[in-house]
């Protein structure tokens, strides 16, 4: 599992996904809908954390 936390001003949304492709898609859905922006694929991956199934 992978987790990404948004660092936009005033936002601490987290996105979790089973793999990299899903994470990229879900992060850009969040950044587009919430901030009218996008995030680069490699930047998303560089800022993602590995977590276990319990979110740790």
């Amino acid at each position, binding site marked *: 599992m992978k987790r990404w936390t948004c*660092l936009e*001003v005033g936002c601490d949304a987290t996105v979790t996904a089973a793999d990299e492709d899903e994470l990229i898609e879900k992060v850009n859905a969040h950044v587009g809908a919430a901030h009218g922006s996008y995030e*680069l694929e490699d*930047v998303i*991956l560089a800022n993602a954390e590995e977590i276990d199934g319990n979110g740790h």
Partner: protein
Amino acid sequence: MTTVEPKAVEQRFLLTPELMAGAIYRKYEKATRKFWDPKEFDYERDRSDWERMTEAQREGIITITVRIEAGEQAVTDELLPMLAAAHELGRFDWVMFLSTFMQEEARHSEFFNIWHREVCGVTRPEQKAAHWPLREHTVDPTGRFRTGEPVYEGIPKYGAALMDAVRGGDHRAIEEGFVRFATIYNVWIEGVLTMPTYEIVLDTCGAWDVLPTLQAGFRGVLADEGRHITFGTEACRILIAEHPEYEALVHEIVDEYCGNAVGMLEYQRNVPGLDLQKYQTQKVRHYRNRCREMGIEPDQTLIDAILDPNLDFVVDVQAG
């Protein structure tokens, strides 16, 4: 002339399984898969859009694209110290990735050159310069911040210092020079200052429903830049993890050109109808991301300055 003893045979094989399992080799491998060629684009629709756009719309776009073209050429031409330093530090995976990095910057230079020729009919340097608003036109009325030219001052300055360190052969000096160079180039210019520019072009062309090839080129450039930025921050993270005192070098470089982030710059605010505050606020996200990637703490004073609504530059956007 220096005499060089040939390496032992087993030391001549640099690409080890450990390097091939690492994050930097993965970027190299991805770069070779994601190749794109600006000569394969169709520029016809952009040309017809350009002819029907208003003068203000055309000037808003070309003010940005001429700066980007020159900037891409500058970074192509100034990347060599990073490659030399990676070699001297014995980091062959960095050398491999940087071989794709330099080629990509050259490709970006080519794309904007072709786009200007095919769409705008602009080929000569003096024609492009006529659309270039000078940095001196961006002024902080409070006098607290100065806006410099990090691409044309900072990169050559820190590149020359890094080459001096490489020639000197002192490992620590090369590492420090590498952190400074990666900070000015990958962290600050590519990773924060230029990000709003790409977004302005994509948002504007999307809203006006124009210039699909320019948008496609910007998307290709951005995908490449994502690897460049995260290479620089990963290299800094590795070096800072080994020497935590290097974190201070990052903050010193950012401080030197912090003025360029606390307001929108002249060429970024010449497009009609933009919500500039959106792009200003997003610089904080990019800066925080860069710090997270490097494993360092962002400077809250700088963030406060970027977000301060009372800090906005006065700009005369007349070109030339």
